[in-house]
């Protein structure tokens, strides 16, 4: 096993003599002009609004957001399929904003794979190399290597239609990486696969990208994909960048209610801020004074919203001494094996709590109507300005 790995990594370094490069977007905007109002540049939708992003060489960055947030348009501008209305795109030091798509050192893996149905797997992978007019031998070597890397050794002569979805995905990947691009783009490439294959391909893409050392920009609306694959995530909303950060930052320290709500499950509890010291705010939750880590924009005396992830809530046996505000009722429970998720009805409104099987506190699955006591783990919460303030 060790030996195999060694061979593969040597091969891959050969494959990637193009070298990765950084990618930077400066004030990138795209306005789609309504065809019927072409004379008026102000009419139309601003699909991408002043996006600035620096991707370090070799980094894996994901553009994440709800559909229509501009992530795909941003990716298509990087690829060269859309012309930016404003802003620049640099690969390394080179400004490629005006470079046509076929001249960019960038390869894309398409959502639909976009394999050429009239060409064999081998010819698909060789397509770009042939256009480069490489020698027959060089093409053969590189295609072979790419196919081996993607575990497609004996599939070269097949037509793409004869392959399974996962194999087609691998061909698309091989076809892109064989070009030794400085940047690889992924447009929701896993959305057509079933759940199990998707998880497998996630790690495969990530492994290949790491070994090649290619810079990668990945577009998805699936937050699990974004969380598990990315070095950094760019959360987009309404054409704008909502937040850029590592998966942990995005999850634990979102900078707005939108991001907190979009990523993972979230409970928001409205609170009054009593005081703030050293990034910790004193607030009252369930009649209990707690100190919660806070976003710098929150000021003493503000109304703020406390983000409580489901796993930051602990359930306990209700005791008579509990104030009524801490008691709540189970509305429904969903058993996941490793954990149980509860929909709760509390004095502050509906809440979601996740209790993992191994955690302390209540054991067993509680059923509808059960009374429980609720406790917040302050260190796992995050105080955000109310959304009105944040906007």
């Amino acid at each position: 096993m060790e030996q195999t790995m060694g061979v593969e990594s040597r091969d891959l370094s050969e494959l990637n003599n193009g070298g990765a490069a950084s990618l930077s977007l400066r004030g990138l905007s795209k306005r789609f002009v309504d065809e019927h109002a072409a004379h008026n540049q102000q009419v139309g939708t601003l699909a991408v609004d002043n996006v600035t992003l620096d991707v370090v060489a070799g980094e894996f960055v994901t553009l994440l957001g709800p559909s229509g947030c501009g992530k795909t348009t941003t990716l298509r501008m990087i690829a060269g399929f859309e012309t930016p209305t404003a802003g620049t795109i640099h690969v390394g030091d080179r400004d490629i904003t005006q470079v046509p798509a076929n001249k960019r050192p960038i390869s894309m893996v398409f959502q639909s794979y976009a394999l050429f149905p009239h060409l064999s797997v081998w010819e698909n992978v060789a397509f770009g190399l042939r256009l480069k007019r490489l020698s027959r031998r060089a093409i053969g070597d590189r295609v072979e290597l790419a196919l081996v890397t993607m575990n497609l050794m004996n599939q070269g002569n097949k037509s793409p239609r004869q392959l399974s979805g996962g194999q087609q995905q691998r061909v698309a990947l091989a076809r892109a990486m064989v070009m030794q691009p400085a940047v690889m783009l992924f447009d929701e490439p896993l959305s057509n696969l079933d759940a199990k294959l998707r998880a497998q391909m996630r790690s495969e893409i990530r492994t290949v990208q790491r070994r090649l050392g290619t810079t990668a920009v990945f577009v998805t609306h699936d937050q699990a994909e974004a969380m598990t694959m990315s070095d950094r995530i760019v959360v987009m909303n309404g054409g704008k960048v909502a937040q850029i950060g590592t998966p942990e930052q995005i999850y634990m320290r979102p900078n707005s209610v939108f991001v907190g709500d979009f990523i993972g499950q979230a409970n928001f509890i409205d609170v009054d801020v009593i005081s703030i010291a050293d990034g910790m705010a004193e607030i009252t939750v369930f009649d209990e004074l707690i100190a919660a880590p806070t976003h710098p924009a929150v000021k003493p005396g503000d109304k703020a919203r406390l983000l409580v992830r489901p796993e930051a809530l602990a359930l306990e046996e209700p005791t008579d001494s509990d104030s009524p505000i801490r008691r709540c009722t189970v509305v429904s429970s969903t058993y996941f094996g490793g954990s149980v998720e509860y929909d709760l009805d509390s004095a502050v409104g509906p809440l979601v709590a996740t209790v993992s099987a191994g955690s302390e506190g209540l054991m067993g699955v509680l059923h509808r109507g059960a009374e429980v006591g609720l406790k917040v783990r302050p260190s796992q919460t995050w105080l955000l300005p109310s959304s009105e303030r944040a906007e």
Partner: protein
Amino acid sequence: MSVKTTNGQSPAPLTAPGPERHGRSGQSRQRMQVTTVVALVIAVLLAFSFVLPIGSIFGHAFSAAGVASLTSLFTTTYGRELLIHTLVLGSLVGLIGTAVAFLMAYVHVRIKIPGKRILHFLSLLPVVSPPFAAAMSLIILVGTNGIFTRTFGIDIHLYGLTGMTASLVLAFFPVSYINLIGMLQHLDRSLDEAALSLGATPFSRFIKVTLPLMMPGLVASFLLFFVESLADLANPLVIGGSYDVLAKSVYQAVTTTADFDTAAGYALGLLIPGVLIFLIQRHWVTKRDVASVTGKPAGEIEVIKHGKSRVILGALAYIIGAIVIAVYLVIFLGGFVQYIGVDNTFTLANFHYVLFGVGLQPVRTTTILALIAAPLATVIGLLIAWLSIRHLRRLGGILDLLGMLGIAAPGVVIGIGYALAFGHSYSVGGHEVLPILATGGAVLGGQLALVMIFTVRSIPAALRAGSSSIAQLDSSIEEAATDLGATSFQTWRKVTLPLIRPAIMSGATYAIARSMTTFSPVIFITTANLLVISVAINNEVSAARYGIAFAYCSILILIVLIAIGIINIFNGRRSKKTGNATIMLAANRPESEVL
């Protein structure tokens, strides 16, 4: 986007479309300019082929005599009769034709009976024959002195409305048949299953689910028959008797009195409804489509194997098949005898005349000109399709419309327009800028005008086949090629072209069939020295030399079948390698896209 097909079927993309996809992809200015130039060149060519002829018709129609003939359609008894006759004929052919086409299509797709492949072949056969082949055959079979008429002593009074309806239905039902097959095959089976699971009986399911879903296709089929019978001149001449219709009046005005103004007036009376129906249908079909008929059939189509409906529908289909067999048997045998049904002496004289005698000229001319026009029409049609779908949405839409005019404008109208516009030369300041192109004294003996007519009449088929084929091509496939470093020309050559090759082939096939058999538009510009087969047949029929007419028919059918065979062999070898099922399916029914 003008990719919706006439039968209301929406071409499904090969793969799920990505989000936020916008039609006009980022492209360099330079490429924009190239495509614009190509578009403009095509626009100018089409304008030259249409605007001048149609403009001439308007010019003559608004002369005193032209206006008089146009208004006479509403003011005089004879005019109103002409109009009513034309409408009655169109509606009858529309209704009966649609019924026949639907019957044959339904049997083909849904019912299991023996001999289905033969029925399918018989249903397609009329595509490759001239429009009046059926008329000639019916005259021999059930005409005043026909075989059946004499044998059974029953005269159905063929000449007139009866004969025209029958022969027009027989001549034009294949196109509608292919349309409806496509629709039936693409009906989502889960809808049927849903209806059944909700308690519908097979019959109520047919009435309440299948038929409503087919409505766009059935209406399209009705209009297709209507417009074709409006435009057809061959059948009124051969079998129309005293039942005068508009197309015939146009012809008579020209041939009996050489009164082009009157003819243009009548022609305008044909052109306006023809183009209107085309536009209405185009609009209507574009609007409603996707909702009912999905591109992806879910599962196998259920085939009826038992029951009363199978027996009844099967029997009806066999009857239609038998009629087609009888008609074509007469055509085939008719060439080998003196006068079939009257003097059945075997002779090879007819074929000798057609293949080695005076009759060879039309065969040679038609074949050569059709072979020139077919690639031209295919290339122009595909270019229009490509431009209007991928590049120039608005200008492309206009181009698409211009391209389709070749089918929207009735053949008689195009013919008279060509005679008027290109029958004389144009001079500016004493210098001849455009020589005579059509009729006597024209350059190249008028062959140029024939090629132009063949081409504009064939463009629509290539255009529709190309449109559906290109629309089905996920644009990300072309983007992938660009992404891998291909220039737009390389993308076109290495990806787009191979993938739409089946559409090209079928477009060319149809162009050849259409050019070889066309009659109404060319009769006005052919001369004794420059005949085409269909006009030659008409001349023989007028002179009651049926033997020679049938020999021409057989030779014509043979040539078209050989051309189709060659293309299919070539295409088959390719498609084994290419073989994208979806694309093939769409491309193999080019006529279906044509109104």
